[in-house]
């Protein structure tokens, strides 16, 4: 009976759906998976001689540190390894890596010849037994071993996630020491992971809020050198700096580069009122962008340079606004409860990170550029001053603890709100500015 019915059905269907005349595969749809750090293994890179041994070990360690630091990967300890990798060109024993659930494998070799250091590596997808991308070699000097490790880690990260790289980058920040009422502040730069800290100023004058130029060769910052906060431009490579010609007898601060690096937007205070101005760096000429009795500060360009998001209290409390880069009418984009400040446009252009103050707590959050889909990523006594990683995936910011012994520390967090962690610096740190990927 059933068969008959079915045959009838088929008889009817066959005319309207001849495409099913052949037996197709079983079709399923999966729309729910898991989110967890991917287990990976980096057997220590193979040194080609005794002089390369330490570099091989250190480079492997930095690669592991970079990858686990993203929160997207989990290192499988070498204690669990079944296979030993003793030659870079030997075939990978995938079964041994599958057995310990290493889903990605990075193999490499290090060669040192005099001051010259070369690093070769391959990335493997263990369960398919396939190589992700092709083997690659970086060459440089032994001095640059850390950067070479970051470059390898960047490749691994990009090949597995598809996200842009960011490990081979630097961060400018303010190094802080001493109690809150006598804080000593010095301008400093470091690798993104807190290594290789270099100080660019002494602590004689208060320095605030450095900002990297789009190419990472210059820094803008604010210093009290003359007694008044004024903005300075510093050539990072030559450690030369100049005061920018803003008007005399006024306070200038909060400077940011335009995406082409040719001009800056900044705050200028006259008669107690703070507005935004734009300066052409070649000519030193400034033009006014806002003209209200309210405070306008903390500007940030969109990556295409066409718009500026900034903070203004023209509504009574600090909120976020967007205006054309040439000035003109501004549109408010923040409408949640509380006060909003320090907006920073993401390098991808899709999000704006900000500081939010609500009910006695501070948050770092992100929203779309029209103010929608606000998400708060952190909460503490005092979080402020977000800066984006070059790939727009990670945010670094300042966290200050409360009380007389309060201390400033740099923190980073993934834009999913996961993987919140401190960035280790020798002293306290504040006002980070993440520079571009180095080349």
């Amino acid at each position: 009976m059933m068969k008959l019915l079915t045959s009838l059905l088929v008889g009817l269907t066959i005319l309207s759906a001849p495409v099913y005349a052949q037996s197709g595969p079983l079709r399923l749809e999966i729309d729910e998976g898991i989110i967890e750090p991917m287990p990976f293994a980096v057997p220590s890179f193979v040194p080609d001689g005794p002089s390369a041994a330490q570099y091989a070990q250190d480079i492997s360690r930095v690669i592991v540190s970079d990858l686990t630091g993203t929160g997207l990967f989990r290192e499988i300890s070498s204690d669990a390894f079944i296979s030993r990798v003793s030659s870079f060109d030997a075939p990978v024993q995938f079964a041994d890596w599958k057995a310990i659930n290493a889903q990605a494998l990075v193999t490499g070799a290090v060669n040192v010849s005099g001051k010259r250091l070369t690093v070769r590596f391959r990335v493997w997808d263990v369960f398919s037994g396939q190589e992700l991308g092709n083997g690659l070699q970086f060459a440089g000097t032994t001095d640059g071993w850390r950067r070479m490790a970051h470059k390898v880690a960047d490749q691994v990260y990009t090949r597995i996630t598809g996200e842009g790289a960011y490990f081979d980058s630097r961060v400018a920040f303010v190094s802080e020491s001493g109690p809150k009422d006598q804080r000593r502040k010095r301008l400093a730069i470091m690798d993104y992971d807190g290594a290789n800290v270099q100080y660019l100023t002494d602590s004689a004058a208060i320095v605030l809020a450095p900002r990297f130029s789009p190419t990472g060769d210059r820094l803008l910052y604010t210093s009290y050198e003359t007694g008044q906060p004024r903005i300075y431009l510093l050539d990072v490579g030559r450690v030369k700096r100049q005061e920018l010609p803003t008007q005399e007898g006024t306070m200038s601060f909060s400077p940011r580069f335009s995406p082409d690096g040719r001009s800056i937007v900044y705050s200028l205070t006259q008669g107690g009122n703070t507005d935004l101005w734009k300066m052409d760096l070649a000519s030193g000429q400034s033009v006014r962008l806002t003209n209200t009795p309210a405070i306008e500060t903390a500007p940030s360009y969109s990556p295409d340079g066409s718009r500026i998001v900034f903070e203004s209290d023209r509504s009574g409390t600090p909120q976020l606004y967007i205006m054309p880069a040439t000035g003109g009418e501004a549109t408010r984009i923040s409408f949640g409860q509380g006060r909003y400040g320090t907006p920073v446009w993401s390098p991808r252009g899709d999000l704006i990170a900000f500081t939010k103050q609500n009910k006695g707590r501070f948050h770092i959050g992100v929203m779309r550029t029209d103010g929608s889909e606000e998400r708060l990523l952190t909460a503490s006594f005092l979080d402020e001053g977000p800066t984006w990683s070059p790939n727009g995936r990670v945010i670094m910011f300042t966290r200050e603890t409360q009380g007389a012994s309060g201390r400033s520390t740099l923190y980073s967090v993934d834009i999913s709100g996961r993987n919140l962690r401190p960035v280790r610096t020798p002293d306290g740190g504040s006002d980070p500015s993440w520079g571009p990927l180095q080349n």
Partner: protein
Amino acid sequence: METGTKISAIAHVGLIGWALFGGTFRSEPLPMAVQDVTVISAEQFAAMTAQREAPEVPTDPVELQQPAQPDEIETPEPMPEEPPEPEPVAQPEPEPEPEVEPETVDISPEPELIEQPPTLEEPEPEMAALPSPPGPEAEPSPADKIAPEQIAPPPPEAKPDDVETPPVSLDEGAETQQEQQDQTAPEEAAPEIVTEAEEVDDPAPRTSPRPRVRPNRPAPTPEPEVAETPETAPTEPAQNEQAINDALAEALGGGTEPSGPPLTSGEKDAMRVAVSRCWNVGSLSTDALETVVVVGFSLSRDGKVVDGSLRMVGSSGGSDASAKQAYDTARRAILRCGSKGYDLPADKYDQWQDIEITFNPERMRIK
């Protein structure tokens, strides 16, 4: 593989790279007066500008050739040992940049510049300990793993694994020749991403920030009687097609083997859940999370993926690059969770011999 050619290629690219980028010295033609910063002396400045030419930034990457085939591996001969150079103790910075030694000017008493870069071994993730959940509808708490269903913290001795394995001790398992196994348990997981901002100190009920639809659970028991009847569940057109296909194949007498009855929705769900447990989108870029991929593959009778059968059938919503990453991730899921063979009804092999799975990450996006 001609080693000579390889070396030559590397050397050439390196040399050209150095010539192009190694010696450039960027100067800013800004018209304003420039003065030295007080923190460095003139000698230091002269020293570091001179040094600028020397250190080499990593040159252009050189692609490596595929590794040699297993049979023709040559073990590289041990290089004649070079005169051991004194290893640099302090790590100089990689960039050709001036070292600004703060000690030269700053008289602050505390130690300033670290000789060794800070170690980064243990940046403890700041995921807070789980506040004890007040009940089954507990507040999701931060966990390293996000899974459709909340999983309680594992027993302390268990290693995380996707498959729960009971602990087996040597003496007990001696007769069955079972290998000693570590006890495993599913890793602790939260049903959604919980940020610090969403954590609450008190377990008082509040509105959930992001309610999620629960995945379809596998039906508790597959109903055998459905076998005869082609399923006509209105919400499952694919199943309908499948049923029709089967019926069609049967009616036309096509196929030498008698086609088994179609999979029940329970059996399909079980397969779907089996793969989704390994579909880890946590390491996907935000772009790849916008990309839907369809992956086709074949299974052998023991439920294992046939070598080389995996392929991307199609993709939508992203670039080629993001489709590649999305495919890699989907492939990993299918292979990893199927490494011991998928548990599918053997009598319906024809129904699941070829499978196409659409991986849609829409609900897993960062929101």
